[in-house]
């Protein structure tokens, strides 16, 4: 292989590999964002919108009133109520 062939092969090969790596990274992060967006509503629906006040002010037995709980949260709560070891 001549120096010219080696130079072209390395330059184009490195650029090609870097481009493929970037596309794969982009796909992985897009997938991660989709997963995060799917899990995020379940968690955040039960969180009061104002998180600035301290946890001492929060009544641990009361239902959050700032946001509507999701169906999933309702189901989870119902399970807790009926489970044998559930807290009263």
């Amino acid at each position, binding site marked *: 292989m001549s120096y010219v062939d080696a*130079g072209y092969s390395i330059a184009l090969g490195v650029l090609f590999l870097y481009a493929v790596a970037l596309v794969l990274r982009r796909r992985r992060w897009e997938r991660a964002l989709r997963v995060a967006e799917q899990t995020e509503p379940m968690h955040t629906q039960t969180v009061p919108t104002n998180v600035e006040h301290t946890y001492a002010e929060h009544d641990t037995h009361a239902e959050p009133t700032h946001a509507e709980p999701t169906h999933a949260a309702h189901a989870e709560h119902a399970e807790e109520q009926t489970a044998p070891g559930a807290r009263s």
Partner: protein
Amino acid sequence: MSSISRMNSSGTASAPLASRPRWLSVVGILGVVCMGFTVWLGLWITPPDAVQGNLARLLYIHPPIATVALYWAGGVALACSLLYLWPRTRSFFWDRLAAASVEVGAVFSALTCITGSIWGRPAWGVWWAWDARLTSTALLFLLELGYLALRRVPADPAIRARRCAVAALLIALDVPIVHFSVDWWQTLHQTGTVLDPGFHLHVHGSMAWTFLLGFIAFSLVFVWLLGVRYRIEVLQDQVGDQDMEVSLAERWNEGSDGTELVGVGSSGPHVPEGGAP
């Protein structure tokens, strides 16, 4: 947590996943087509050089790669960093674009050194010489690696962006040194390859067209790589924001179970930065 880090750092976290811009795909396709023509013209169509013979064919890719590494990547990083540091134009958009430009620039800087070295071995008889142009280009590559390492240091997004902007200014300082090194010092590297100081062309005919096409091809490829890399930066920040909201919610739910939690309102959870999901 500072006010700037409390805000949505991506600016689009609550928005649905944005579609990929079509113009970027067009640029990528054009870049590949131009690159194909450059290789075809450079390897098979243009005549051998009167002095260097076939070795001159390497010069259809080496100066364009160096141009992208030095002027396009360095220029974008400098401009974006200045725009970030300037309070009136401060935005994470500029920070992300600068980071993308430095990473792509590092790849082109490495290729500049490699292709130059491959040309230098038969032309000069050595793979490497501690010549001013070669050394300053290698320094540029190391500075870019340093920037990328600095970016991975965990910190508040605003602090990280400011640090990186200052680091990009240091990279930019090296660019004129690389450019003028062949004029300021006696170097093994030749002076202007395509244009002389009076802006007169050194090459003509099909060689000149191949040169021009090479510059266009590598510039288009740079823009495409920059666009894709920028999108990754946006996605990383969006996932970081989502993770922060989930962590906050989890901690809140733990608190509702009777666990004592202190200081969520004052410090907040750690925002992941750039790590793999």
